[in-house]
């Protein structure tokens, strides 16, 4: 009989707020991040990058660089595997350009030398001759007839005939008859929205230390959200056998989706293979901006029809996303998330994935969803204004709930949107008075969440303590959550459990830490692994007592006979069982490997008050409240942290952050001075409300929480600013100049 510890109430450890296990290391400077590793004989590397947005590479001359003091190796595309196809080819092409540099910052060569300074000097001495080609960086312009073609033959079968070759993927979904729906509406609003590309902005630049021998065996240390993926991709790009490369994930200094792919790791390994020495490679901040994962920029049209009582009769959206010079802009997520909060009879959404001469986009926290919410929730806000309706009541009236059909097809299981709206309505923030010059905005947001391939292993020690090996890098306190869930099942104190992020040679395959999957999937696997260990612990007690295994149960860290018929035995504590485990059948472990499919979706509702200075156009967020469904908050403090962090990133996206390209196609603001992320003095405290509508797909009801928190902010802030300024803001970021322009044109109009 398999043990089942499923429950949604009566927790002893889950839901408490203990100190995190890596806290001491992180406040003392001992924690080792990507750039903190060294190795004997280590070389330092630097990457030569294209200064052009689009250029044919005619010649790369490395003679001068190679002749310099301390230089040990130079690599170009010729040093990587050939014959790759599909996404591996795309990644290689991005990691090291082939014939053509496709964006400002595209890698074309790399060098390793005995010091960081000599590597940099040698990198500058590499000579590259280019033939400059016409470029395009804007999504709408890239779709126009006559726009420069980034790459021919990149489009897949989804793309309808007659579109520009830069359109490489197409999505269409929905149901009903939208035109009939619009005919039933009392008011239809259609509007155009634009968002700029933003960067995940993790404070730790990409960094790695790689060793690869001529024997095809390698070791790699890197900051990543998924080291099995790094292993797989590096092996493919270098022509290695996957198992011969061992990858260890360092502590990771932020990722938010941007560290789900590889950029520099194969380059460090290629240099190491050539130089026969360990090679360390760390991106500069400018390289992070130019050559690692920004989001897509978007151009969107949304049309929604409403009756005077607030019923939405139909909704339609067209979402154009550029994802840089490679396919993959998450336009299908944009399309699918757009109307997910609403129960709609007639809905249609279309998405375009468009190539431009920009860096390959990478996932950024709920990729594609925040932009969709910005467009859709702005139109709903405008409809509520024009029809004099309460924005929360209107959303409640149309809200998706269990049994209704999602805009992208399936029927919803148990979801918590209504609960977040009701909690937002009841929150004192919603009815607090506003000062002159201030406006209030609200928005809903949705993210799917993900399960994914997962392996976890748990081992009992002889003293009754336990170690857990998980394979999902800890990007926000997940080791604490794993230990809490294991403590709950084992019935031993949280402090007696140590959770480690295993390297690729020490555990089975694990998908990346993405899709808000860690607390859900690694958590579920941890629970199952602990259950397996408990079953074995019970079996040892049964053997000792000479009673059947099913006459023993587990409670508070002890085996107990299940009733008077089972026999009269004192509870047997875990440490007594493990103390003799060698003699009673051997080590007691538990493991679990699967691809859990029950990730529960998560909805949120945010309330924002913003103040606009009509003279300078600058905006200050003065109050912010996040309400989100967590299913079950395993460590509530870290759940709040995810809510607050997502809101803060959304504030940056809404107000300041943008990739600015010049006429020459070069990025103008590749640094934290000119790409301004929110600083402490920009923000208010961020209030949080954790709603718990249990996810039926997890033993303790957990839903992922990391991503949904960035879905509502763009729209909520735009609605607040639009209310404060008295003019609808349709383009992000709402920087001061844009607000002044909007105020001017409103005054003129």
């Amino acid at each position, binding site marked *: 009989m398999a043990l089942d510890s499923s429950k949604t109430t009566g927790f002893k450890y889950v839901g408490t707020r203990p100190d995190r296990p890596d806290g001491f290391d992180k406040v003392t400077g001992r924690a080792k991040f990507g750039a903190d590793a060294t190795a004997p004989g280590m070389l330092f590397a630097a990457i030569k990058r294209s200064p052009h947005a689009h250029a044919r590479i005619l010649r790369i001359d490395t003679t001068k660089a190679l002749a310099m003091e301390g230089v040990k190796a130079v690599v170009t595309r010729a040093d990587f595997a050939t014959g790759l196809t599909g996404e591996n080819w795309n990644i290689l092409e991005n990691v090291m350009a082939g014939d053509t540099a496709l964006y400002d910052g595209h890698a074309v060569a790399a060098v390793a030398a005995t010091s960081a300074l000599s590597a940099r000097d040698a990198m500058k001495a590499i000579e590259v001759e280019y033939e400059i080609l016409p470029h395009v960086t804007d999504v709408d312009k890239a779709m126009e007839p006559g726009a420069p073609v980034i790459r021919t033959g990149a489009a897949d079968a989804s793309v309808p005939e007659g579109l520009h070759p830069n359109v490489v993927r197409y999505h269409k979904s929905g149901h009903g008859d939208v035109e009939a729906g619009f005919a039933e509406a009392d008011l239809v609003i259609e509007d155009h929205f634009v968002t700029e590309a933003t960067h995940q902005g993790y404070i730790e630049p990409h960094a790695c230390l790689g060793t690869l021998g001529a024997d095809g065996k390698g070791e790699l240390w890197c900051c990543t959200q998924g080291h099995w993926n790094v292993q797989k991709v590096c092996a493919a790009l270098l022509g290695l056998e996957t198992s011969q490369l061992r990858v260890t994930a360092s502590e990771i200094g932020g990722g938010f989706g941007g560290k789900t792919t590889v950029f520099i790791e194969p380059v460090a390994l290629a240099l190491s293979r050539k130089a026969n020495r360990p090679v360390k490679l760390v991106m500069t901040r400018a390289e992070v901006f130019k050559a690692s994962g920004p989001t897509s920029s978007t151009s969107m049209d949304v049309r929604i029809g409403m009756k005077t009582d607030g019923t939405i009769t139909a909704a339609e959206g067209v979402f154009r996303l550029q994802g840089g010079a490679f396919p993959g802009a998450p336009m299908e997520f944009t399309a699918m998330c757009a109307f997910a909060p609403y129960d709609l009879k007639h809905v249609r959404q279309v998405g375009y994935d468009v190539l431009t001469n920009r860096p390959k986009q990478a996932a950024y926290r709920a990729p594609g969803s925040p932009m969709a919410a910005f467009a859709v929730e702005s139109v709903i806000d405008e409809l509520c204004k024009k029809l004099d309706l309460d924005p929360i009541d209107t959303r409640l009236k149309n809200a998706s709930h269990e049994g209704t059909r999602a805009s992208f097809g399936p029927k919803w299981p148990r979801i918590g949107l209504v609960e977040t709206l009701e909690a937002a309505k009841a929150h004192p923030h919603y009815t607090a008075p506003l000062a002159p010059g201030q406006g209030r905005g609200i928005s809903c947001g949705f993210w799917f969440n993900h399960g994914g391939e997962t392996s976890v292993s748990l081992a009992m020690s002889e003293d009754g303590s336990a170690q857990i090996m998980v394979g999902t890098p800890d990007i926000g306190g997940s080791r604490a959550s794993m230990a809490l869930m294991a403590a709950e099942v084992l019935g031993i104190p949280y402090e007696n459990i140590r959770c480690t992020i295993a390297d690729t040679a020490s555990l089975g395959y694990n998908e990346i830490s993405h899709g808000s999957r860690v607390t859900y999937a690694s958590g579920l696997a941890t629970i199952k692994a602990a259950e397996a260990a408990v079953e074995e612990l019970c079996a040892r007690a049964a053997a000792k007592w000479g009673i059947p295994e099913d006459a023993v149960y587990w409670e508070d860290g002890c085996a107990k006979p299940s009733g008077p018929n089972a026999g009269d035995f004192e509870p047997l504590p875990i440490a007594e069982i493990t103390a003799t485990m060698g003699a009673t059948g051997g080590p007691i472990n538990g493991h679990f490997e699967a691809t859990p499919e029950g990730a529960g979706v998560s909805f949120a509702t945010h309330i924002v008050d913003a103040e606009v200075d009509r003279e300078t156009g600058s905006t200050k967020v003065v109050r912010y409240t996040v309400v989100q469904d967590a299913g079950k908050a395993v460590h509530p403090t870290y759940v709040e942290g995810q809510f607050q962090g997502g809101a803060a990133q959304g504030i940056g996206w809404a107000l300041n952050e943008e990739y600015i390209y010049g006429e020459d196609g070069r990025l103008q603001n590749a640094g934290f001075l000119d790409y301004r992320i929110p600083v402490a003095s920009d*923000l208010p405290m961020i209030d949080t409300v954790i709603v718990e509508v249990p996810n039926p797909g997890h033993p303790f009801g957990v839903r992922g929480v990391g991503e949904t928190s960035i879905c509502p902010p763009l729209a909520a802030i735009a609605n607040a600013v639009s209310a404060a300024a008295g003019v609808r803001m349709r383009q992000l970021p709402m920087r001061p100049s844009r607000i002044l322009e909007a105020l001017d044109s409103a005054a003129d109009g």
Partner: protein
Amino acid sequence: MSKLHVTTKVNGDTVEFLCDPRETLLDVLRDRLGLTGAKEGCGTGDCGACSVTVDGRLVCSCLMLGAEAEGKEIATVEGIAEGGALHPLQKKFIEYAALQCGICTPGILVAAKNLLEKTPDPTEEQVRYWLAGNLCRCTGYDKIIRAVMDTAAEMREAS
């Protein structure tokens, strides 16, 4: 290029090193002295992850040359705890979960300690402006600000 010989004090210990004149204090701390607590988030003075104090003054160590450390007293995150005993700020940061990834934490702790030494009773606004040079992308600053304010209150009570 020939290297410079520098003698300085780091966290109370006298140290000597040779460095290239172009190396920053941050490069020296991390690559020559093995003190990797200070982080490089930008190298241009914009993120504060490399914060240390030099003769009691808060600086971005990426903006100062290693050679300029001659005769100075440098303090880094590694020197904040006394042996195994954490500083009140370090304890509060753990208790409040004022870190998620923790890459900004060394710089923020150095900066916050420096603030509390000068201003034991800061307002929230003072804390926010003092830490405005220390970027954190994970937390939204809420728990950081609360941890600093609460530490200040606790330290005032204790003194």
